[in-house]
């Protein structure tokens, strides 16, 4: 394996971390859909911690190793249309994901605080873990990541 093979490997492993994290969050969203139970949310917030680490590592790894690969390989350039499209989609997806994480993280911390204080239910938790802005942000972010995957595999114009 030469350096480019290693960069490609790390790029793909980062993509697995990023999509894996989004899958973790989707599983949690489905499992907690519409719940107002603070203890249920608090118990699964511990699972979300690994998702948060993976999404950070995956987001940074995909862009760093992806751009490095585009610079390093003669076959591709950073200004190729499909590479620029991927970078733009990545930036928007990361921002939408950050907003979803902020909303879910806030509700999760609230659930942990209330659960520790002995409060069983919370309307704020029920609202966030239902059809909220948070799930819209996460769905939009997931859709954009899916488009990046399609772009990476088909490489339109390459």
């Amino acid at each position, binding site marked *: 394996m030469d350096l480019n093979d290693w960069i*490609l490997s790390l*790029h793909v*492993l980062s993509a*697995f971390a990023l999509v894996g994290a*989004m899958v973790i969050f989707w599983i949690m969203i489905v499992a907690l859909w519409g719940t107002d139970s603070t203890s249920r949310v608090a*118990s*699964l917030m511990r*699972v979300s911690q690994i998702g948060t680490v993976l999404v950070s590592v995956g987001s940074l790894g995909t862009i760093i190793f992806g751009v490095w690969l585009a610079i390093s390989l003669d076959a*591709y350039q950073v200004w190729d249309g499909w590479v620029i499209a991927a970078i733009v989609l990545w930036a928007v997806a990361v921002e939408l994901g950050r907003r979803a994480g902020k909303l879910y993280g806030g509700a999760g911390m609230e659930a942990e605080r209330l659960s520790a204080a002995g409060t069983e239910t919370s309307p704020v938790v029920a609202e966030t873990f239902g059809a909220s802005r948070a799930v819209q942000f996460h769905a939009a972010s997931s859709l954009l990541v899916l488009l990046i*995957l399609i772009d990476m595999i088909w490489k339109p114009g390459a």
Partner: protein
Amino acid sequence: MTDLLAFSRPEFPLFVHVLGAMVLVGAVTTAVVAQLVPGIGSVDGDRMRRFSFRTLLLAALPAYIVMRIGAEWMYSKEFDSNSDDPTWIGIGYITADIGALLLLIALITAGIASWKSKNRLGKASGIVAAIALAGWIVAVWAMSGKP
């Protein structure tokens, strides 16, 4: 290698294979963390064992099947069955086959642990799933780097 990735690969089977594998990794990671968390603080063990079992059954198992269908589809398009396979294909098949066995063991033990409220069996399920996950991460490295 880049030419192989860009032009001659059958894209749709590759997409199915990669997407299935990504969902599999995410689902198994969720199940592993959920099984190994119950010992910490006040987290409800029964709830986490049930969550882990359902994640393996409803997310990881279907994702494995999709990943494997994509792999076989791609293999049938790209490789002649009479030719010698490259090393990375061998690594992929070994990790997929052993991983399937480990996934089934983890699924069955998670189901029993959830049904009978057995904490140690739940942890064993998490460890078995974690071993499968480690193998699949090696497979991702081998599939992309092609050593």
